[in-house]
C-alpha cells in the first residue's frame, strides 16, 4: 500500500514544554491509525501538525508526497484534502446545519449552491441527520453536532480524516452514534488518523494503535496484540488505568 501520511522526526516545543520529541509515523492509504496516550503526551499536537494548525520546530510531514511543513507549501490546497474533526465540534453557530456543511465547498471549491446542497443532503443522510438541515447548531445535542462536523469535513471530499478526541466532550449515551459513523467511514476505506481512547472503536476499526508518552511513540501494534500483550511497561501501566 502506498504511504499517505509520512511524519519524519517531528519536534515541537511550547515554551519550555517539549510536546513532540522526534516522532516518526507513517499512515498508508486506507489505514486507520489510533493514537492513544496520557494527556500531555503530544498526541493532539501531532495530529494538529498534520494540517499545520501547529507549526513544527523541526522535522517534516508529507501528505501524498507533498510537504506540509515546507514554508512555501500551498497549505490551503493541502487542507482541502485533509478533513478534521475537533473535540469541541467547532460548528459555526451563526449558520444553520446545511450552511455549515456547504460554506467551504461553495467558497473554497467554488461549487454551485445547488451542487453543494445536494451533496450536503447526502452527507446528512449518511450521518443520520436528514431532518436537521435547517436546525441551528445550538439546537442539537453534542452527538448530533459532532456528526454534523463530520459531514462538514466530508463535504470537501478529503482523502484523509483527522479526528482529535472526537468523543471526549460527549455524554456517554452519545458516544456510540459518533463512533458508528466513524466505523462506517473506516470500513469504506477512508484513511484516518484518530486521537481517541475509545477501545470499542479501536477493536472495530483500527489497523494499528500507537501509544505515545512524553512526546514520543512508545509502542505500536495491531489492536489485539496491543490490548492483550503490550510489550512496554509504560503501555501496561496506561492500559491498567483506562481499561
Amino acid at each position: 500500500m502506498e504511504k499517505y501520511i509520512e511524519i519524519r522526526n517531528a519536534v515541537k516545543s511550547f515554551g519550555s514544554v517539549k510536546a513532540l520529541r522526534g516522532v516518526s509515523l507513517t499512515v498508508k492509504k486506507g489505514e486507520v491509525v489510533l493514537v492513544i496516550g496520557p494527556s500531555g503526551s503530544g498526541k493532539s499536537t501531532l495530529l494538529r501538525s498534520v494540517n499545520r494548525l501547529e507549526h513544527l520546530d523541526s522535522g517534516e510531514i508529507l501528505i501524498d508526497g507533498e510537504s506540509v511543513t515546507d514554508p512555501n507549501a500551498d497549505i490551503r490546497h493541502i487542507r482541502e484534502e485533509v478533513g478534521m474533526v475537533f473535540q469541541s465540534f467547532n460548528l459555526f453557530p451563526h449558520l444553520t446545519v446545511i450552511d455549515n456543511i456547504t460554506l467551504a465547498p461553495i467558497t473554497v471549491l467554488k461549487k454551485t449552491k445547488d451542487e453543494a446542497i445536494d451533496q450536503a443532503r447526502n452527507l446528512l443522510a449518511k450521518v443520520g441527520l436528514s431532518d436537521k438541515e435547517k436546525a441551528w447548531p445550538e439546537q442539537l445535542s453534542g452527538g448530533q453536532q459532532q456528526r454534523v462536523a463530520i459531514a462538514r469535513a466530508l463535504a470537501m471530499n478529503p482523502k484523509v480524516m483527522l479526528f482529535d478526541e472526537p468523543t471526549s466532550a460527549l455524554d456517554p449515551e452519545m458516544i456510540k452514534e459518533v463512533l458508528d459513523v466513524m466505523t462506517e467511514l473506516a470500513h469504506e476505506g477512508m484513511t484516518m488518523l484518530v486521537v481517541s481512547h475509545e477501545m470499542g472503536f479501536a477493536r472495530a476499526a483500527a489497523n494499528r494503535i500507537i501509544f505515545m508518552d512524553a512526546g514520543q511513540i512508545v509502542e505500536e501494534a495491531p489492536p489485539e496484540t496491543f490490548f492483550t500483550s503490550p510489550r512496554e511497561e509504560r503501555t501496561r501501566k496506561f492500559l491498567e488505568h483506562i481499561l
Partner: protein
Amino acid sequence: MMKGSPLSGRDSKNPNQTTINVTDGTLIPIKDEGSLLSAWNISFFGAVALLVALPLLSPDPYLHILSFVPDGLVATFSVTLISIFFALLIGLFAGLGRISQKLFINRIATVYVEVIRGIPLLVQLFYIYYALGPLLRLKGPPAAILAMSICYGAYMAEIFRAGMQAIPRGQMEAALALGMSRSTAMRKIIIPQTIRIILPPIGNEFIALLKDSSLVSILAVSDLLRRGREYASTSFRYFESYTVIALIYLVMTLFFSRLVGMMEERLRHRGKVH
C-alpha cells in the same frame, strides 16, 4: 464619559452565553423590570409628560423654548450620526490592528487607543479646534466631528477587539482546516459572529456619543444645548431653558437605550454564539 475597562467576558460556567461588557452597561434597561412602575417607565413617561404639560400649562416661555430648539436637535443628530459612522470605521481598523500579529501595526493601534482614551474629550475638542486651528483651519462642526470620531474610534476599537477575541479559537481553526484563507474565515466566520456580540455595546456608544455631543456647543456648533443657551441668554429664563434641554436629552437617551435593550434581547434569542 463613563467607561469601564474593556473586557471580554466569556463566562466559564456558562459557555453558551458570550457577553462583552465594554461600556457602562447600566444604560441598558434591566430586563426584569417589566412592571408598570419600572425606573425606565417612570423616567421616560415622566419626562414626556413634563415636555407636554409644561407648554400647555405655561406657553410662555415653554412653548417658545420648544419652538426655538429644534434646529439644535438637527445639529445634535447630524454630529452624532456622522461621528459614529467615522468612529466605527476607525474602530474597525484600529481594532484589527490591536489583534494584529504584526508588531508595528499592533503598536500603532495600541498607542492610538491608549493616547486617545487618556485625554478627556473636552480637551481633544479644544485641541483640534483651537490648538490645531491655525493648521487645520476647520470650522466648528467639522472640527467637532473630527474630534468626536477620533475619540470614539478608540473606544470602538476596544469593542471590536474584545468582540473578535471573544470568538473561540476553534472557529478560526475549523475554518482554516476546511481550506479557507484567513481573510475568508474573517469575513464568513469571525466578523459575522463578532457583529452579533458587539451590536449592544455599539448601541451604548451611540447613546454615550449622543450625550457627549453636547460638548460641541463650545465650538460654536448650534446643537441642542447651544440653542438652549442662546434662548436663555436673551430671555434670562435659565431655569426653564435648561429644564427643557435636559428633558429632551433624557427622552432621547432613554428611548435609544430601550431600543438597544430590545436589540440585545433579540440577538440573545437566535443563533447564539458559543
